[in-house]
């Protein structure tokens, strides 16, 4: 029994350690139960009083994954291609061509966008210099810079961009108010954002990826815009005529190939009858007029009016290169941010506006933004104050354009385009045309945290609603409990006394697993719980191996004591071999998997380590005690 002193000590040590690490989790559970039983006021008072305690407890408690807690896991990617385009001070046709080629290559291959960009450029003309597109006094990039220098500069800018983007997103998330958000860089271009307990995924998505590019732009000249609209309509008129004569109007769209490839467009076309301008005889057969009413208010800054459901079709028609050629370079077509009305069927209608391509003033001039309400309509709006330079520019622009519209553009859509009534001094402006207070609040949030250096896109998102999370917790809990009970009963039925000892080891095993998870700050996910359930089934394996061996040894006529000794000794190599391979699988799953899968890998690995300890050491202590100390007979069934 002397040799067991160390084993007993080790077991007690681990038990105490597990207790120490699991205590906050138990406490957090008790506090939660108590809080739930309270009324609203009691709860607030209790939270106030025990704030630090609750916080500390929660921080140290076993963390639950978003799939159990409910929440949002979003992976964002910084659009390096857009960043490069913005860094370029001068562009030409070759630049656009190289951009396109680089985008295609980086999308399919392992090369980064910047590498692909440089290689594609050099492939077109080995002697040309990238420095003709980029200029930066700070980074020392000028006309004589080599391609390597420019590439290094672009890489540096891209790296800075992601770090800044993380900072800005952190500010936005903090302002939004999420408890315990996690924002981390993944690889070189991605940001992983984890937000527990989110109830409005749509709002968070907007908040995360909004570039917050605020611009004040002049609008297109009404006469010019009218001419543009007419030429585009004529273009599609001519195309529709040829298409009609070619295919007897079957496709009914200008570009036969677009219509064939695009079911959306064809679908929109067949519903021409109830489109805004469906009753116009000129519209029959003209694909554009079928989905858009041009110049709905006569000549002005409004280019056309579109049903929400038709926007995709209209975008496609307007994106046609030949149509783009009809639009002057200094005019850009943009949608209104919110619908301007509804049609007779209750569908929302948006305006397309003609806006100047260059911004007179950008959001960088904004020093303060607040939410308030229009004194007459009580609509939410965002009031902004500009810095002194911005205020001067604003005064000049407004003074020179009295009686004309100025568009307030945020992230490519027009929020409002008020008519300038007079020169505005003092640098104040506002964004109106907002749907709700939340929208106004979110705009303030993004404006105040600054614009993202480059657009970000959501490349992965996993959202779990709170009730599904609750259901998963319940399902996981019952699986563990029932699995444990079934295995425990089986072991007792099959191995009698020894089975009871093995069950004891199994219980201890689960305590240790949870202890390890809590100690390492690992997150318990639903696959993680599945890992625990699986471990319950596999953990008894070591004991099964030992017990079977003891039975065999007993069969050869050995005494109980000798049989136990031999059983443990001979089963050891099989146990180790069998467990190590599964442990390897756990390690690999952990290194290559993400999120929930890592949770599974962690519990699997913890389970293997713990089960080896409990099944080999703990059960041995108990048997030694029973057989040697108490001289009892132990039944191995």
């Amino acid at each position, binding site marked *: 029994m002397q040799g067991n002193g160390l084993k007993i000590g080790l077991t007690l040590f681990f038990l105490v350690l597990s207790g120490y690490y699991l205590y906050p989790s138990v406490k957090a559970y008790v506090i939660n139960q108590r809080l739930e039983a309270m009324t609203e006021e009691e709860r607030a008072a209790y939270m106030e009083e025990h704030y630090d305690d609750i916080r500390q407890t929660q921080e140290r408690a076993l963390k639950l994954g978003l*799939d159990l807690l409910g929440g949002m896991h979003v*992976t964002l*990617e910084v659009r390096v291609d857009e960043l490069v385009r913005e860094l370029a001070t001068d562009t030409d046709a070759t630049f656009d061509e190289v951009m396109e080629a680089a985008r295609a290559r980086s*999308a399919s291959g392992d090369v980064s966008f910047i590498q692909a960009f440089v290689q594609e450029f050099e492939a077109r003309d080995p002697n040309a210099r990238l420095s003709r597109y980029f200029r930066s006094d700070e980074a020392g990039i000028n006309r004589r810079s080599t391609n390597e220098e420019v590439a290094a500069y672009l890489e540096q800018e891209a790296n800075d961009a992601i770090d800044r983007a993380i900072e800005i997103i952190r500010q936005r998330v903090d302002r939004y108010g999420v408890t315990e958000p996690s924002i981390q860089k993944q690889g070189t271009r991605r940001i992983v954002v984890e937000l527990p307990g989110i109830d409005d*995924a*749509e709002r968070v*998505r*907007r908040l995360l990826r909004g570039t917050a590019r605020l611009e004040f732009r002049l609008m297109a000249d009404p006469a010019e815009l009218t001419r543009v609209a007419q030429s585009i309509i004529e273009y599609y008129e001519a195309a529709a005529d040829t298409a009609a004569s070619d295919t007897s109007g079957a496709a009914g769209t200008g570009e036969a190939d677009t219509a064939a490839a695009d079911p959306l467009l064809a*679908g929109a076309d067949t519903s021409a009858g109830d489109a805004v301008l469906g009753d116009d005889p000129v519209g029959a057969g003209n694909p554009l007029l079928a989905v858009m009413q041009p110049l709905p208010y006569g000549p002005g800054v409004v280019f056309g009016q579109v049903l929400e459901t038709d926007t995709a079709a209209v975008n496609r028609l307007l994106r046609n290169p030949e149509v783009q050629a009809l639009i002057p370079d200094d005019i850009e077509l943009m949608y209104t941010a919110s619908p301007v009305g509804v049609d007779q069927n209750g569908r929302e209608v948006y305006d397309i506006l003609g806006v100047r391509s260059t911004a007179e003033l950008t959001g960088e001039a904004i020093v303060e933004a607040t939410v308030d309400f229009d004194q007459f309509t009580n609509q939410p709006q965002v009031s902004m104050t500009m810095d002194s330079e911005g205020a001067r520019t604003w005064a000049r622009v407004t003074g020179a354009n009295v009686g004309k519209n100025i568009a307030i553009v945020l992230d490519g859509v027009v929020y409002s385009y008020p008519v300038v009534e007079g020169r505005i001094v003092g640098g104040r402006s506002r964004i109106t045309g907002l749907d709700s207070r939340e929208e106004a609040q979110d705009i303030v949030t993004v404006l105040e945290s600054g614009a993202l250096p480059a657009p970000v896109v*959501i*490349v*992965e*998102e*996993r*959202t*779990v*609603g709170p*009730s*599904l999370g609750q259901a*998963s917790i319940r*399902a996981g809990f019952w*699986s563990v409990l*029932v*699995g444990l009970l*079934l*295995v425990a009963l*089986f*072991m007792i039925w*099959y*191995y009698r006394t020894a089975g009871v000892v093995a069950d004891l080891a199994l219980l201890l095993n689960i305590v240790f697993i949870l202890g390890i998870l809590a100690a390492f700050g690992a997150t318990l996910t*639903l*696959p993680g719980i599945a890992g625990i*359930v*699986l471990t*319950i*089934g*596999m953990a008894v*394996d070591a004991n*099964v*191996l030992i017990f*079977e061996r003891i*039975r065999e040894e007993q069969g050869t006529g050995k005494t109980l004591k000798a049989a136990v000794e031999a059983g443990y000794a001979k089963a050891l190599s*099989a146990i180790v*071999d*069998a467990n*190590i*391979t*599964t442990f*390897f*699988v*756990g390690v*690999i*799953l952990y290194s*290559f*998997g*993400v999120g*929930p*899968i890592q949770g*599974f890998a962690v519990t*699997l690995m913890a389970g293997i380590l713990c089960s080896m300890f409990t099944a080999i050491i703990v059960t041995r202590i108990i048997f030694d005690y029973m057989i040697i100390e108490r001289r009892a007979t132990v039944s191995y069934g």
Partner: protein
Amino acid sequence: MRIFENANFDFIQNRTRGYIFSGILILISIFGLVTRGLEVGIDFSGGMEFVIETDAPLNVTAVRTTLADVLGSDPEVKTFGEGAILVRTLAEGDINEMQARIIESINSAFPGVNPRVQKTDIVGPRFAEDLKEGAVFAVLGSLLVIFAYILIRFEWRFGLGAVVALFHDVFITLGLFALLHHLLPFSLQIDQTIIAALLTIVGYSLNDTVVVFDRIREYTNLFKTEAYPNIVNRSINNTLSRTLITSGTTLLVVITLFILGGEVLRGFAFALIVGIAIGTYSSIFVASPVVVELRLRADAQKAARR
């Protein structure tokens, strides 16, 4: 309680029957994989998945028809547990817009069901490529590490026997997934969790196999005069009780998980049930017989050289 206490089955002598049975399973799997193929989940194909909970159960076909119009591409609609449906679409576009369109069209087609999004999984095409790459690395990595470990611990014949058994198990599990998807009332899509399940099967199957190998190694040293096939047969029989009990307890818990673990884990639990059953079978009827075959062939060559 004792089962198979003094088991003495002629596993090795009748190994041809095992080969035939495995052969049939593999043929069925090939048939499934070729004719029906695997259903790849959005983790690896990219796309959007929404689980929508409603107050009243919805008719899946009706929802599919309704959504086909608004989403453009043909969406996949399935029931998801009780009172919820899963909508999966490959259409690309703004997430918010998609979600709004789905909710709005369900609202207008089935008034009063109060649809709420309970779960979304969105994976972009590039990200899906990365996940796929990660999965391939994970699978190849595990196989490599496992093979290396077996090579270090046992001689190469055992390593080959173990690997043959692993491929056998994973292949048949995948074959069943191919054969049964859309026929069973739960998702059998190949996604990250299924890869995790497959690797667990690999680990588990090996676990079983290694225990038998361990015994063969022990008996080879113990009974030097006995014929090799007999040693292997005796090893299988003497470990049979353990093999079946461990598989039994493990199957017990994964079946529990399958029944109680909820909709999210159902495919995962199903893979484990199939894999563990086949893994147990293969450690007896595939792994050890392969070792015997290799050994007999080597002996025959040695005899021929003399």
